[in-house]
């Protein structure tokens, strides 16, 4: 890490790359130091993050129950499998222009884009988890006379949980990416628009500073998710030491 930072610094100081394209590390940090006193930075982060949170919340409420329900109904599972697999290969960002027609450049636009992006991976993971239950576990439960609903609650749910957690991680990460991409591409309020405005004003150092902020935000979100997963899945073997 330190090596990479040194390389960055010396690259721009020795003039290998023009400081107009790539400012030095110290210049970027100076810009960052001044930018953190700028209220606009926080409102922009707030816009991006709140649209992302609302979108993800809606996705959770829809995709998790729907995915789990496929464990109870084979026809539902079959009906959804190819449909979901097909739709998710279409990059959601392609829908952005059409969404702009419908919602204009607004917070709703970002929320809807987040939903369209994040719902598929979570649905697929949850469906996979609901169907990858060890048949022996189910048979054991049947032999001991558990009802269908009890089996669902005590066997299927815990088995599917690790998959769902993976799905939530993927969904949250790519949801954040499109939340920022939306304002970057079509403007409006958000971290992406802030990066563009710095670039437009010719403040390359500031642009880099805001990219660093975005990276830290992404890093913070994924760290938080990993920690949450560890807490929830303490009993699961994938979380044990050594792997």
């Amino acid at each position: 890490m330190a090596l990479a930072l040194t390389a960055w610094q010396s690259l721009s100081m020795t003039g290998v790359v023009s400081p107009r394209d790539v400012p030095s590390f110290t210049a970027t940090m100076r810009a960052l130091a001044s930018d953190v006193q700028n209220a606009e930075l926080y409102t922009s982060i707030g816009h991006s993050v709140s649209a992302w949170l609302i979108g993800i919340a809606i996705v959770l409420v829809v995709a998790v129950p729907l995915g789990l329900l496929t464990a109870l109904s084979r026809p539902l599972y079959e009906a959804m499998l190819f449909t979901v697999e097909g739709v998710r290969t279409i990059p959601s960002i392609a829908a952005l222009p059409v969404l702009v027609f419908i919602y204009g450049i607004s917070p709703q636009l970002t929320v809807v884009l987040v939903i369209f992006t994040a719902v598929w991976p979570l649905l697929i993971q949850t469906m996979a988890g609901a169907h990858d239950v060890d048949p022996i576990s189910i048979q054991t439960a049947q032999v001991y006379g558990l009802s269908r609903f009890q089996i669902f609650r005590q066997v299927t749910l815990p088995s599917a949980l690790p998959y769902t957690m993976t799905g939530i991680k993927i969904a949250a990460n790519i949801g954040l990416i499109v939340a920022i991409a939306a304002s970057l591409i079509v403007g409006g309020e958000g971290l992406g628009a802030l990066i563009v405005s710095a670039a437009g004003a010719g403040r390359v150092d500031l642009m880099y500073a805001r990219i660093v902020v975005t990276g830290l935000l992404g890093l913070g979100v994924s760290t938080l998710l990993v920690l949450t997963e560890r807490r929830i899945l303490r009993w699961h073997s994938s979380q044990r030491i050594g792997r």
Partner: protein
Amino acid sequence: MTSPVVLRTLRFGTPLGLLAFWWFWSNGSESLYFPPLSDVLDRFVEVWTGPAFRNDLVPSVVRFVVGFALALIIAIPLGTAFGLSSRLRRDALPLTEFSRSLPVAAIVPIPLLAFGPGFGMDVSLILFSAIFPILLATTDGVRGVDPQAVETARVYGLNMRQVLREVILPAAMPPIFAGIRVALAIGISAMVIAGMLSSSQGIGAYVILAQQSFDVLGTWAGLVMIGLLGIVINGTFLLIQSRVLAWHTGWRRAAKEGS
């Protein structure tokens, strides 16, 4: 139990049914933003047999292929090295973790400034966004290779190079393919985003310009082409995967039935 015929009908019929529903529902639609699907398809054919094929579609596909190939060429050897050396992993991990969590979109301005809109910018963006899933999957895959498989090969006299080729890489192939699949999805998005932002050339540029000029049918025609590209690229990938990893499917099934 529902009969297998019904289940198969549901599996293949539902996506087709939804498309048919869209066709009839939008037929004669007066809505400004949801034009009839038949009109969209007419425009689709018109656009992509016209100059946009050469000016937007071909450049996008070429840049995607070049960027993705570079990502594979860099990420797989690097990931293998990371997987084998815990020191390398420890030294480089913070940097990869940070770079990976940089939303693709956020870094777009960097290549835009460095290369200007065009080939270099698009390729570097696709490369940057596709490299991390492959790198991390390769690292994990190589780390996860059963030490006993490696020991077996070593006792039977294989040198490190041979162990790598005969044991470690084949064993890591399933996770590497999983990483490639994730990278494909992100890479295609990067291809579109790059075009949308540079607005110069490429399929992303085509849709964003159509949207900005309120050409609703043109925007839809672009969206359908991007969707089609996604499906074709993924389909090709799954075909290659089913060839390369044929053993893995059988092995998994055997392990499941055996237990």
